């Protein structure tokens, strides 16, 4: 038996105006693994998830769930998945329990009353489960969302920003039962825009930015003294030389542009031994370089480098 629960290959979503909001995303999920999908708001996390669960059409790419092709065996794939997509929504004129009963009935394998109670207990909603969902707080809805997703014991759990609206205690509980599920062999894909959460919750993270997957990192190897020899390099050049710089960077194998910052900076990812080569090439191309700065990659650095621009924009917007 294969240990791969899900394989995503070249997933792409193009919306009107030829804009690609997810571009060539590929990753693999192993059995019992908690995989984080990390990226700032608007990165394309929800869009990726929507394609995997079949809410929107893929423009390109393939998804395999337990080896089955989503395009050919859609129903079988869906049976194996439990999901929360974006904000959890419920029939708020009914009780939490009645809502769960609806979803239980839609499962292909029957769900007993004991299983219902067990799940309600697990997400700590026993006290409020007979109340109308109308009265629930966002955090309680999140818990109910998790409950409906795990009710049928899916092999693959997909949670889109499940910590939204949860208090620290709730987040901790979520972490604990995801780990519990993982020990039972259930894999979880969990998206978030908060790195600190992902670091505590996940085994690995896929980092997404502007629709592209820019990194897949193993949390443990990226702890502070990680031995990765990849560097994040920021390079500052004269404004007028920006285009030449980009051309030069593209000529050097093994250097990838993480992003361009302001109008005179590039953030790059590369091996340490390529730094002198790049420097020499830039000099040859007569680019005025004001500074090259490099540091060891840690997930945090990388993520902050990625999101710093967004932070600045957000602050300006306020």
């Amino acid at each position, binding site marked *: 038996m294969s240990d791969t629960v899900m394989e995503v290959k070249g997933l792409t979503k193009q919306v009107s105006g030829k804009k690609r909001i997810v571009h060539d995303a590929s990753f693999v999920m192993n059995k019992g693994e908690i995989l984080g999908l990390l990226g700032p708001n608007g990165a394309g996390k929800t869009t990726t998830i*929507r394609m995997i*669960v*079949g*809410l*929107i*059409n893929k423009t390109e790419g393939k998804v395999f769930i337990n080896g089955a092709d989503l395009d050919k065996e859609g*129903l*079988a794939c*869906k*049976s194996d*998945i439990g*999901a929360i*997509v*974006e*904000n959890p*929504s*419920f*029939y*708020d*004129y*009914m009780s939490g329990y*009645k809502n769960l009963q*609806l*979803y239980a*009935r*839609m*499962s*292909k394998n029957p769900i007993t009353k004991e299983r219902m109670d067990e799940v309600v207990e697990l997400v700590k909603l026993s006290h409020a489960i007979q109340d109308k969902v109308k009265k629930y707080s966002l955090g309680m809805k999140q818990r109910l969302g998790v409950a*409906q997703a795990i009710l049928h014991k899916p092999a693959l759990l997909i949670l889109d920003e499940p910590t939204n609206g949860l208090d620290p205690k709730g987040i901790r509980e979520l972490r604990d039962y995801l780990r519990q599920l993982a020990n039972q062999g259930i894999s979880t894909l969990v998206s978030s825009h908060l790195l600190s959460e992902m670091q505590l919750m996940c085994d690995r993270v896929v980092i997404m930015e502007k629709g592209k997957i820019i990194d897949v990192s193993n949390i443990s190897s990226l702890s502070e003294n990680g031995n990765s020899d990849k560097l994040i390099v920021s390079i500052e050049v004269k404004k007028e030389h920006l285009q030449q710089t980009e051309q030069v960077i593209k000529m050097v194998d093994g250097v990838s542009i993480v992003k361009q910052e302001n109008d005179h900076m590039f953030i790059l990812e590369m091996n340490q031994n390529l730094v002198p080569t790049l420097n020499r090439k830039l000099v040859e191309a007569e680019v005025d370089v004001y500074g090259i700065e490099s540091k060891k990659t840690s997930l945090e650095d990388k993520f902050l480098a990625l999101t710093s621009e967004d932070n600045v924009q957000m602050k300006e917007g306020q």
Partner: protein
Amino acid sequence: MGALLKNEWIKLWNKKQTWFFLGAIVIIMIGLTFIYQSFIADSTNQGEGEWTIELETEISEQEEILESGTDEEWMEAQAEQTIQENEELLEAGINPNEMNNMIFMNETVLSVASFITLFTVIVASSIVSSEIDNGTMKHLLIRPYERWQVLLSKFITVVAFSIVMMVTLILTNILMGTIFFGTGSYSSQVMEMSFHGGPLYTTVANIFPAKIGLYFLNMLMFVIISFSLSILFKSQTLAVGISIFILFSTSVLQGFSLLLADTAWYKFIFLPHLDLPAYAVVDEIMPGVGIGFSLTILAIYAIAFIGASGIYFQKKDLM
């Protein structure tokens, strides 16, 4: 599929609106009975045979008017019509003032049924759009069912709801009719007036099932139109608004049928055919347009609406 149907049915009856609609039908029916009773109270409960005398008296009154001659043409015309109607009633042996629960049912059920159409159209146009609107649709579509199954279960639910309302209406009607007007024979004789032709003398047993059946088909068509259109909209309010607009504008536009009947294309659009109950009384609603033709046209439109919206929903991106 059974699970989906059951779920839709449960969701429907957990909404206050559903019970409100059902209660409204009962209350409107009761209200109508009182209004009806206050209008006809004075002319019922005559002795046996008195009604023939009354009709004959009326005939001779009208004949006097004709003989003495009037300047007003319309008065003459009306007098002639009254005489003719009364003679026909006498000949058919129908007491125009006779009232019992069956005659009451035949005369009043369809006027309250328009509320059923309205309520059903509201439910039909919100059952999909509300779930897209409030985000619960995504929870349905990630389950191991085809999208068309989700749609079908909702459609069947709407139709079943309209049947429940119909049955409730008829039961309330019979109950009120029996209390106020006493029991009568299902084959009581009645006169039917029609917009398209002269009066028709028949029995409740002959006409009532046809009226209800045709009314139901007519309503089904409105359900199909509003259900299909609502799928195109994300907003529940918009979907319901447009459907109600279509419902009301249909009867307004049908007022122009006489003007447009001569144009070659008019009978090929669905509008004039959405008056099926007329066929209970007349054979043709326009020259050369009978029930077979109307049902065919409506069926073609129904398939087109269902097909187009179904295909659209099957492929739709649920953002």
